[in-house]
């Protein structure tokens, strides 16, 4: 894209995009580390994820401040306007994704009491992996202003929803058979729900990226019976 006549405007846009890349990278790492902490029952790593969320929140505040400055001082138009508005909306969503990762990490001590891995946990790492990849890819789509990649992220949300439905059924069955584990399993249900929500939020970001890049809203997607069946 051609440069602005006023170079300082380009610098500000670059800084904005840099901050969002950093924020997204931290959110993605938070999801991966929270899941790793859960699998390994690693309380120190879980605490690290909780602590790391502060930086994500701080970047959100920094981006908000910068966006308001850019709007006030540069009066951005057309794709520039869509870009900075998308930035403002995207950071609030990434902040939520960071919160979900933090919530997963906070549940690790409550689940780790059992000293052995509960069988229904086997699906969660793969589910977390898909959600983390969605976050990763949607940030690449943002960086490249790539509407096709954004669309691909949206399409993958169905995978996370399917995972969620099957984890839910597995956990309920397991709890019926092992009532002593209900406390831990209830926590795992929340973990699954958090991951499912991360997928939804990555989808929201993808829609914003699509709009910023094209000026059009993303076409309504076909949903092939993969609705989330159980809400908590």
């Amino acid at each position, binding site marked *: 894209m*051609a440069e602005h006549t006023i170079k300082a405007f380009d610098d500000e846009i670059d800084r904005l995009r840099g901050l969002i890349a950093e924020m997204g990278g931290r959110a993605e790492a938070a999801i991966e580390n929270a899941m790793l902490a859960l699998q390994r029952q690693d309380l120190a790593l879980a605490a690290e994820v909780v602590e790391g969320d502060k930086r994500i929140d701080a970047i959100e505040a920094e981006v908000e401040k910068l966006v308001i400055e850019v709007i006030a001082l540069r009066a951005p138009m*057309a794709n520039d306007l*869509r870009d900075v508005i998308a930035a403002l909306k995207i950071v609030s969503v990434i902040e939520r994704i960071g919160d979900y990762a933090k919530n997963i990490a906070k549940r690790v001590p409550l689940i780790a009491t059992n000293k052995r891995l509960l069988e229904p946990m086997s699906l969660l790492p793969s589910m977390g992996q898909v959600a983390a990849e969605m976050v990763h890819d949607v940030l690449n789509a943002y960086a490249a202003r790539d509407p096709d990649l954004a669309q691909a992220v949206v399409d993958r949300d169905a995978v996370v929803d399917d995972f969620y439905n099957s984890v839910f059924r597995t956990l309920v069955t397991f709890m019926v058979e092992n009532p002593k584990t209900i406390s831990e399993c209830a926590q795992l249900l929340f973990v699954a729900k958090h991951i499912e929500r991360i997928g939804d939020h990555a989808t929201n970001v993808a829609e914003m990226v699509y709009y910023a890049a094209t000026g059009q809203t993303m076409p309504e997607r076909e949903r092939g019976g993969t609705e989330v069946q159980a809400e908590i």
Partner: protein
Amino acid sequence: MTQDQINLAIANPKMSARDVNVFYGEKQAIKRVSIDVDMDNVTAFIGPSGCGKSTFLRTLNRMNDTVASARVEGEITLDGEDIYATSMDVVQLRARVGMVFQKPNPFPKSIYENIAYGPRIHGLAASKADMDVVVEKSLRRAGLWEEVKDRLHDSGTALSGGQQQRLCIGRAIAVEPEVILMDEPCSALDPIATAKIEELIHELRGRYAIVIVTHNMQQAARVSQRTAFFHLGELVEYGVTSDIFTNPRQERTKDYITGRYG
């Protein structure tokens, strides 16, 4: 790119231009411009210096007739009537299609006489009492009445710049025009005076077809419902103002309004 994709269909055009070319001597300043403007919307012409937007505006009431080297081709109609037809009375045309200029240019006469001059030469007021009504109505519509009603016989040139410009708008309104052309009406004014003119444009919308040329894109965004972008004598894109400023179709429009031009 077809004409449909860069141009806007206007249901009830007040003025229509078709394939208009303007030459200054050998140099072509306007290249095959076709555009419609209507009564319900304020139309803004934007574009970099020398793009032809003011030249084109001036073809709409034949102001270019006064430039010896200027030559206009194509068709421009007002209510379907060809304004370049030999039967067209140019004085009448300019009463129907009024103009407000960049620099306020009141006559060196009283405020009252500035307004009364046009109606008098066009025979729009039969008596002094009639003229008083026309003057008050015009000054009210121009948003100036309350500020000047007690000093109507002071000189128009003693007013502030913003008041002078509203006086000029009142003068244009006084002869009951159908179209008002404004050529950068706020470029010599401060932000408060500018805001008053913009508010006035908003109030006049619907009563007159208004076409405004402006260098200030924010102003085009604020006052208009339709925006036309000119570049190198061509009409690059004409659309709904909110679309032009959020999602322009043409690369050249986008580069200009986002400050990437040149």
